[in-house]
């Protein structure tokens, strides 16, 4: 079935004239029709607009193609990235019937590469959460077990790829929001180095941590998409003017001479024994593949969650000030301007967003700034230095992506602190500004149905080539990426 193909498989078929972009998109639309009332990965999709894009791609293909790397490939988008003339809600009530007036930089790049850009994927409201339960528009379900969460905040992006409703998707990652749902849904998720991909047109959550990245069915597709998404953009002053390598060329399978670090601080209490066993098996596999395993230390790991929830909420409280009912939002009238702001925000934001705005406002407020925010920024330096020191001896660091496989819907939603602590392995990567990738490394045996387990690789700043090379070699030898949730093909 066409919707189950990888990007590289589809583009080969399209180039040979064995199928069309329209047929491929139609297969995705049919799959959405068949499974999305159960999965609810999509908030909406504009089938007519997508079919028009597919037809345009077929015309180009008929003309002999154009060398565009994603010509005719259907890619779905998290509801936090602007797509011109399509809705943008960040899974929040506050934006009402907002329609994007322009394309994000990554959308321009996807279009230039020939992709069929479609759909608005569910997420935690304003990307704040780890389960997609904070969406104002209902839960997304894990395709492997519909009673469980898909992870978050990019839960819709992961579930849509796992359920074969699209070939690949885009998400955003502030503290693990790509890697964690990728792990829980059994796909590949890549958070690029801070500055690698332009954030222009991404609704800001925490500006010093946010990065856009791909969800794909295998590592090769992640390499292809990263090559398209990367590059300097004058409209994002934090994007970096480094050349974009041919990431797919790095997938040689040759790991000789590469050193992989195991961080002793990541073997924490609360790490599920099955997750631990799967990661240990991956370590053995890497040794067989010729990589050298070295123990490293990241001594400030225990402070990462606390540091993150100060830095991220402080930045969020400032970024979300723009949702005040003046230029957009469902305005709620008030006696004066301040009351209008307060009522609009009180009516429009959900509980988790309010919690984080309050926390962020508090840690920045007079008398507390130095004790909380400034101290957290200093600890952030220590966390970053831990990684830079480790990368003097190793090429990448290997960890579990999450302490457990997917949890049940409702299991942690009453206790925000427990939810925050489930991000323990993914958060440091954003604070340090390095790159990270999650890929499948096995399944649980204790649960029925079985659930995917994710392996995380953390790489040097702008070390995505090494990360992808390591991930690809393991993936090809282990073969976990070929497993599909029963729902996808039933």
């Amino acid at each position: 079935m066409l919707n189950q193909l990888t990007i590289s498989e589809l583009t080969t078929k399209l180039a040979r004239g064995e199928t069309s972009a329209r047929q491929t998109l139609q297969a995705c639309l049919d799959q959405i029709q068949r499974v999305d009332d159960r999965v609810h990965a999509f908030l909406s999709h504009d089938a007519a607009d997508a079919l028009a894009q597919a037809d345009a791609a077929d015309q180009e293909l008929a003309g002999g193609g154009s060398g565009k790397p994603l010509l005719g490939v259907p890619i779905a988008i998290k509801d936090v990235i602007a797509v011109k003339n399509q809705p943008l809600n960040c899974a929040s009530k506050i934006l009402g019937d907002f329609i994007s007036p322009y394309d994000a930089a990554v959308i321009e790049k996807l279009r230039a590469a020939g992709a069929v850009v479609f759909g608005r994927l569910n997420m935690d409201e304003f990307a704040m959460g780890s389960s997609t339960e904070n969406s104002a528009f209902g839960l997304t379900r894990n395709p492997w077990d519909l009673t469980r969460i898909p992870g978050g905040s990019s839960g819709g992006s992961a579930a849509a790829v796992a359920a074969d409703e699209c070939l690949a998707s885009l998400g955003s990652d502030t503290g693990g929001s790509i890697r964690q749902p990728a792990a829980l849904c059994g796909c590949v998720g890549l958070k690029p180095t801070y500055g690698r991909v332009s954030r222009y047109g991404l609704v800001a959550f925490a500006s010093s941590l946010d990065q856009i990245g791909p969800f794909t069915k295998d590592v090769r597709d992640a390499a292809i998409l990263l090559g398209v998404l990367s590059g300097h953009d004058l409209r994002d002053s934090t994007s970096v003017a480094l050349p974009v390598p041919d990431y797919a060329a790095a997938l040689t399978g040759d790991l000789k001479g590469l050193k992989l670090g195991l961080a002793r601080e990541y073997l924490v209490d609360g790490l599920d024994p099955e997750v631990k066993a799967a990661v240990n098996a991956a370590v053995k596999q890497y040794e067989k593949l010729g990589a050298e395993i070295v123990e490293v230390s990241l001594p400030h790991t225990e402070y990462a969650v606390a540091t993150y929830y100060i830095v991220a909420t402080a930045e969020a409280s400032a970024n979300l000030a723009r949702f005040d009912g003046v230029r957009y939002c469902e305005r709620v009238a008030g006696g004066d301007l301040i009351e209008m702001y307060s009522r609009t925000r009180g009516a429009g934001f959900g509980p988790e967003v309010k919690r984080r705005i309050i926390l962020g406002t508090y840690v920045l407020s007079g008398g507390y700034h130095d004790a909380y925010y400034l101290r957290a920024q200093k600890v952030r330096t220590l966390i970053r230095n831990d990684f830079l020191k480790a990368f003097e001896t190793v090429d990448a660091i290997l960890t579990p992506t999450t302490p457990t496989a997917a949890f049940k819907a409702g299991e942690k939603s009453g206790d925000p602190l427990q939810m925050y602590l489930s991000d323990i392995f993914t958060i440091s990567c954003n604070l340090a500004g390095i790159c990270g990738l999650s890929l499948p490394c096995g399944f649980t045996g204790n649960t029925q149905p079985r659930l995917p387990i994710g392996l995380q690789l953390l790489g040097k700043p702008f070390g995505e080539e090494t990360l992808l090379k390591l991930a690809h070699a393991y993936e090809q030898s282990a073969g976990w990426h070929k497993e599909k949730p029963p729902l996808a093909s039933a």
Partner: protein
Amino acid sequence: MSAAEFDIHYVAQLARLSLSPEEEGTLASQLTSILGYIEKLKEADVTGVEPTAHAFPLVNITRPDVVSQSLSTEAALRNAPQQANGLFLVPKIVE
């Protein structure tokens, strides 16, 4: 830096966020427990450590001073809750 000093009503005013009394109660107790956890940072020795605002700091980012495309007034006003004469309308702010 004591969680006990946390005044939810005052902070909500700073954040321009109207909260119901029930929301204030729930948030205050949740945030007290989160702030309790964050106290952990006090243990870290940050003597002489410079703060990190951005992991990859770039400075003096400028662009060539040339006219380029920008949003039209119409596009910029497209999502406005209230507008008139090509402008955003807000409640009266000066008596």
